[in-house]
């Protein structure tokens, strides 16, 4: 019962719109002028000392972006974004580029400590809560990466793990070959915007046959006011390799909305496997829907090689607006895609999330498990597309998306698109929406649990399928997050 007790304590200790990571830190920063134009794109590129081809690529994306329209098909409703009223680049003044930890602004270190992210390897070596496992961290603050841990140790096994701005210089051939090969600049409005102004993010390359010796992780933090964060992550798993990558994100409580438009590209070559886990906990806004992050993210994995596997696991609890569809292109024969998601919305949050599984190769398989929980006055939508190409014989998909409604002012929606052009493809889809059954609640309460305890227990059972897929460090955190997100929604 320890977990339940902990959940309840958490629920009690925090107020209705409690957001643990809502503090802001006073870090001197260096910003580009407000607004977006070609000069800003050039400014960002120059700040990073980028080669000419990358600047061209950015400018091309910017020109395409100008011709595009913001998508409006998602079931989210938000005030128009003034793209000229944002800072597109903001970097802590003291660290123009990632340096050794001793040189980092102590204020930054303090902030990460407060977030529970150990940046000092000495501390990190102790592992997380005695699990004995180690995690290498790339810490991205606003527009730049401030520190990357365990780089030396990873390099021993040939793993490249560094900020993408650094990879452009140290491994230009890899970046040039793979950047934009999964999410082209013109893929969608936000991807085009990201391609034009992306500032930093992580770059990972796992050489053939290597099993990455530790979990890799990026921690994204937006600190500065009025800035947008546009990070770009590129992960390449070469033949026969394996990597598990974690991503976490938080932002201070602010009254205005902030934009986060990231692009994540995964490339899995023959026999490789990428496991990508996210715990998204951007500031969701207060209970009246004021403030919060607009999270418009394009995440896509390309199973380019035969027998490759990409697995997405996400726990979505934050953001005022979420627009996010981590997808898999199953190009290689016998490749496999997985998507496990828990999306929790409370207050006035709006979530439109799901996945796309595009079966192109033969005997490809995919599995989608999505659990949506809506509480308060929120809207929670699952939107997914399963597609079998004419040549994708033997494709197999199983989709299960369940929604749970807590309270009578929220909405839960399911919008699956299931498209098959191959007779031997087998697609199964099932979805249910319900509320926590009175019988189950009564059963738990009869055994001495309060209404809130009982709800937390049942919800944890509801999302168990997905929690099991998370790396251990995250599973614990995710469980706590679920309790906090649902706080105030019972009774």
């Amino acid at each position, binding site marked *: 019962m320890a977990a339940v007790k902990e959940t309840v304590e958490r629920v009690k200790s925090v107020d209705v719109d409690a957001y643990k990571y809502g503090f802001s830190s006073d870090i001197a920063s260096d910003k580009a002028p407000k607004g977006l134009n070609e000069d800003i794109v050039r400014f960002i590129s120059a700040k990073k000392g980028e080669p000419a081809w990358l600047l061209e690529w950015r400018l091309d994306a910017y020109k395409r972006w100008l*011709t*595009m*329209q913001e*998508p409006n*098909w998602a079931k989210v409703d938000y005030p128009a974004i003034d793209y000229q009223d944002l800072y597109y680049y903001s970097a802590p003044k003291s660290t123009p580029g990632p340096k050794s930890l001793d040189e980092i602004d102590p204020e930054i270190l303090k902030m990460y400590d407060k977030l529970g992210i150990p940046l000092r390897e000495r501390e990190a070596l102790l592992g997380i809560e005695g699990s004995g496992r180690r995690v290498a961290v790339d810490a991205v603050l606003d527009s730049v990466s401030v520190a990357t841990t365990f780089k030396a140790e990873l390099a021993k096994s040939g793993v490249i793990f560094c900020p993408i701005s650094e990879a452009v210089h140290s491994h230009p051939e890899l970046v040039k070959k793979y950047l934009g090969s999964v999410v082209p600049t*013109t*893929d*969608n*409005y936000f991807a085009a915007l990201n391609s034009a102004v992306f500032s930093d993010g992580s770059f990972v390359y796992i050489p053939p046959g290597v099993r990455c010796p530790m979990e890799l992780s990026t921690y994204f933090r937006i600190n500065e006011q009025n800035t947008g964060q546009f990070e770009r992550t590129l992960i390449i798993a070469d033949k026969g390799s394996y990597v598990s990558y974690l991503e976490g994100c938080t932002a201070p409580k602010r009254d205005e909305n902030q934009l986060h438009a990231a692009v994540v590209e995964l490339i899995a070559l023959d026999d490789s496997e990428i496991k990508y886990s996210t715990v998204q906990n951007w500031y969701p806004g207060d209970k009246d829907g004021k403030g919060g992050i607009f999270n418009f993210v394009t995440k896509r994995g390309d199973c380019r090689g035969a027998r490759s596997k990409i697995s997405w696991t996400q726990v979505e609890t934050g953001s005022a607006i979420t627009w996010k569809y981590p997808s898999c292109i199953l190009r290689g024969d016998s490749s496999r895609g997985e998507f496990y998601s828990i999306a929790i919305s409370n207050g006035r949050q709006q979530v439109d999330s799901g996945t796309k599984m595009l079966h192109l190769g033969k005997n490809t398989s995919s599995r989608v498990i999505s659990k949506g929980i809506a509480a308060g006055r929120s809207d929670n939508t699952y939107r997914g597309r399963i597609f079998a190409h*004419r040549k994708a014989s033997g494709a197999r998909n199983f989709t299960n998306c369940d*929604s749970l*409604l*807590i*309270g*009578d*002012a*929220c*909405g*839960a*929606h*399911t*919008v*699956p*698109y*299931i*498209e*098959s*052009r*191959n*007779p*031997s*493809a*087998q*697609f*199964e*889809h*099932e*979805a*249910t*929406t*319900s*509320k926590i059954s009175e019988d189950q609640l009564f059963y738990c309460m009869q055994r001495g649990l309060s209404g809130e305890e009982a709800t937390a227990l049942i919800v944890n059972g509801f999302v168990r399928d997905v929690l099991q897929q998370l790396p251990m460090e995250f599973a614990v955190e995710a469980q706590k997050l679920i309790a906090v997100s649902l706080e105030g929604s019972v009774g």
Partner: protein
Amino acid sequence: MNPRVAQIKTQAETSLAEFFSARASTGAHEAARQKAVALFAEKGLPHRRVEAWHYTDLRNLMREAWPLAAPAAAKVAANDGLRVDIVDGACAGLPRALPAGLTIRALRDVLAKADAALIAQLFPEAGSHDSVVALNAGLARDGVVVETAAGVKIDTPIELAFTTGQGAPRSDMSRCLVIAGAGSSATIIETHASAARAQRNSALVCWLGEGAGVDHVFETTDASPELHVASLIVDVGARASFQSFGFIAHGDLLRRQCFIRQSGEYAKIGLRGVCLLKGKQHADTTLAIEHAVPQGESRELFKHIIMGEASGVYQGKVLVRPGAQKTDGGMKSQALLLSDDAAMYNKPELEIYADDVVCGHGATIGELDADQVFYLMSRGLPKARAEGVLIEAFAREAIEFVGNETARARFEETLSAWLEARS
């Protein structure tokens, strides 16, 4: 990519707009008509970017609009039984005799009397954004109005037989209205044929009073129009039951769209259907079910069997409005693909704003199970026969729900013949 595109009117859209302006003022329902004209002028024909029409790009598929069928002669034939003929969109035959409590009138006669209440019931789609329904509201001149008095049970099915006269290609538009009084019950069978090449836009509007029961059947025939959009708009009152079955085996391009609203508590809605598609046929079944009040029940079951280069579309949306507690919704769509070039697009959808509900949907797409075929073959059936048995069983699961025995027998026969032709 979503580049900004300037909407250019297609030839079909231009012609349709001309049909609108060529039509003289219609008097009583002119206001509804003008609203529809404005909606169509703004939206044009639906295309890929209109979410509800994503898989049936009518703007692209309907290159030209054939001229509207000329108004039929005023003479109305007297039919045996409860058969109504609608030829070229006009009422051309009514039953000779009607049982007590049943009235059937030509729509043009009703419109001429300008009964405001009836006109309001004829155009319930105000606020809808479907431009094909708007097209129908703007251009349909005739059809039929069926009314059952409270408590009356009509045992004989009322048959609405749609067809065209012979001659040049044409388009025909009609609108029919069924008003089922409290506690009444009736069966409506809608059959579609055409003697000339035809583009049809038909709409059937039903109002079910408290405790009423309507059993509706939609049926294609081997002379179905090339292009047909059939809209069904239903309002289901308290404790009423609306059941509809669509049997689709013909027609090159068919879109059947059903907008069903549960407006009274404890109402039951059942929508089911079978689609047998081959060649280059394209059939789209789109349902929008709205539970506006508590205690509603809806069940959907659709089976698609697709061969050749045909494509099937199933979109089913269940909307549960805030406060519509205790809604019980269950939807199932299954498709069998029997050839390499067959395609199926499934989109079951839930939109739920009430917490105390049980709603679910299931969708499957696949081919025949090789093990099951093998099992039957090991018992001595030839392969084609073994497959036939399985396909038949698959389709019959839905056909079972057809209440009217004659119609059910007819569907089973068509199914057998279709399977026969397959091998």
